[in-house]
């Protein structure tokens, strides 16, 4: 067996090289086809046990991972617990030790604390995949966004992508920024400055204050979900005003100089960060993003399990 191409865990796109990112994207390509078969299953992870450990509510990501695991023939267990590990009374390190004692092969973790996936990965021998850790990263979301862009444009080099919304609190934004910049895309961020990290330019992105200017500049917009609690915490005055100043509306989109590709990681607040007519319109790739999510997660699971990139030609176990 050759050395794993990705290392033991996938916790952050920050830690991956451009070659590793391309390897995942390329490995996802043949997996897209598996989901279109009548019998949607390959034996790549037969006999492997995977725990989906979700400390935060999630529908789409959890289901996407579970489909990816089942289509690779892995045995899966779902552990969903609302609230933090602290309120549950057991520490994350104890949870980790218990999982390890049951001889599992992989853990997919979603947790409200930044760094929790890395924390777990350093304490157990099993592979750890980050399904979203606090405000840090959501690497498989970043990968599926990037795969969707590559599908649409046929390239990433020089592509202009603007991420719109609450950059300060967004793990999706961080993973997109790392992944896209490593692969040669130009990345901008747009949104209220109360929701921008200070020194955001140090991440290698351009800040565009007005959504109208972002629409003029970009080839693609990735519109983030606005968490309603940001309003309660005093970062923005109201959802109504957010839509009026920063929302991706039909009017604004009509003034775009070219056909823009519109993405959204979901779940959407229709009429807040994005108008329904835009989300459901011809520029939207929101549903292809969801489809690609399964393929990208199959690729990540497969590669971390030690699979070789050319699995469809007789590689792997």
């Amino acid at each position, binding site marked *: 067996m050759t050395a794993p191409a990705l290392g033991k865990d996938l916790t952050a796109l920050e830690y991956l090289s451009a070659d590793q990112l391309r390897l995942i994207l390329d490995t996802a390509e043949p997996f897209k086809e598996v989901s279109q078969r009548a019998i949607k299953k390959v034996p790549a992870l037969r006999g492997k046990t995977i725990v989906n450990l979700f400390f935060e509510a999630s529908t789409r990501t959890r289901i996407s991972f579970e489909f990816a695991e089942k289509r690779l023939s892995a045995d899966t267990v779902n552990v969903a617990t609302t609230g933090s*590990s602290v309120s549950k009374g057991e520490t994350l390190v104890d949870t980790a030790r218990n999982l390890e004692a049951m001889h599992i092969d992989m853990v997919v973790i979603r947790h409200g*604390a*930044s*760094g929790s996936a*890395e924390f777990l990965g350093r304490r157990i021998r099993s592979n750890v995949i980050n399904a979203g850790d606090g405000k840090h*990263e959501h690497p498989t979301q970043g990968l599926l966004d990037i795969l969707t862009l590559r599908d649409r444009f046929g390239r990433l080099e020089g592509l202009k992508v603007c991420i719109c919304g609450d950059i300060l609190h967004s793990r999706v934004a*961080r993973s997109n920024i790392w992944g896209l910049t490593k692969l040669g895309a130009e990345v901008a961020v747009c949104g209220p400055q109360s929701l921008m990290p200070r020194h955001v330019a140090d991440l290698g992105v351009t800040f565009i204050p007005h959504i109208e200017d972002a629409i003029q500049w970009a080839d693609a917009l990735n519109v983030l979900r606005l968490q309603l609690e940001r309003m309660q915490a005093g970062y923005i005055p109201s959802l109504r005003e957010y839509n009026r100043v920063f929302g991706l509306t039909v009017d604004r989109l009509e003034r775009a100089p070219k056909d823009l590709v519109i993405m959204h990681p979901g779940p959407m607040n229709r009429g807040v960060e994005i108008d329904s007519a835009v989300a459901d319109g011809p520029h939207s790739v929101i549903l292809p993003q969801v489809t690609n999510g399964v393929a990208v997660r199959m690729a990540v699971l497969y590669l971390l399990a030690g699979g070789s990139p050319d699995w469809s030609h007789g590689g792997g176990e």
Partner: protein
Amino acid sequence: MRGQPILLRGGRVIDPSRGADGVADVLLQEGKVAAVGRNVGTPDGALVLDVAGKVVAPGLIDLHTHLREPGQEDLETVETGALAAVAGGFTAVCAMPNTDPVCDNQGVVGFVIAQAQRAAKARVYPIGAVSLGQKGQQLAEFGELVAAGAVAVSDDGTPVATAHLMRTALEYAKTFGIPVADHCEDMSLASGGCMHEGIVATKLGLKGIPAAAEEVMVARDIILAELTGGHVHLCHMSTRGSVELIRRAKEKGLPVTAEACPHHFTLDHSACIGYNTNAKMNPPLREPEDVEAIRQGLRDGTIDVVATDHAPHHYDAKEREFDDAPNGIIGLETAFGLAMTELVDRGLLTLPELLLRMSTRPAQVFRLPGGTLAVGAPADVAVFDPDVRWEVRPEAFLSKSRNTPFAGRTLRGRAELTIVRGQVAWRRTE
């Protein structure tokens, strides 16, 4: 019975209080410095220690220590903290009042002093709370706290909650001649933050505490010191903006003193990378420019003293998500080595200047005995090996806790012998 006289023979005697630095003998007798000079005679029955090549200095004094007793004796006790202190060359520590119960009454002050007497290691000076229960509402009884032995007041762990409370505390404290020591943090700016607000926090996805959270309170306290004429002591300064504010306040002659911790002149926020909870403290580790400003502040005296903010925590508590881990590190056994390595070896301070910032000046700021080897002064003396290079090994600490980001680091200089009240309180045996 005061025990046998001690003659420290042939060391380099540094006494910043008198500007003295030269080879001499030091005789300690009946709990006091009896003589300092060449060829001091040996009294009958004296313990004679050859300390040639070592540095003999007034014992270090820490203005900012968390001893955790009463309430969290699993983390530290007065005894273990006072033992860690003497192992670090400290002959006196000031114990912060954020214990359980809070040290806001003469009963707790008396208890801490009684525990310290029982331990018979470093001297322990309790700091009383500014407000009852440190709740930021009603002033604690400063008069009774001081009568019982408190040397300052502070709501450390949290800031003095309101400008009005700070104002009245500064005014009221003047009667008793004690400083009000403030943990400067605007809670509305810092709320939910767990490290410095900067590029590292952005990358790690952790909520930041802006430098402004400290500086807003430093500015408030300086303005109130000017209004009241009361002595405000600014704890654990961490930002370049704070240093600049204090510099201007001192130029105006305001009654403001300040301290900085070894971690804030040694580490920057990049120490948090990898979610290292031993680099989590409050105030947080800042940027390299802030580290440099703290060093310069100590060099030019804008920052009066080095204090440890010794904050013991159980290893379990640090072995968790960064958001949930407690703030703070222990510091008594690494402070001198860090200061030697980061300040003296870099040419920012001479060794006598460092001892000024760790012994003489702290005694002056809190009006404590010690910090001097003048004849008749308390026989609180530390002997350092200034040249020894040693590796920080937390398992060898005498503190009950092990939470330090400096494990494995090589430092220069450490205490070899610590004498409190004229008696050997600790002596390195390895």
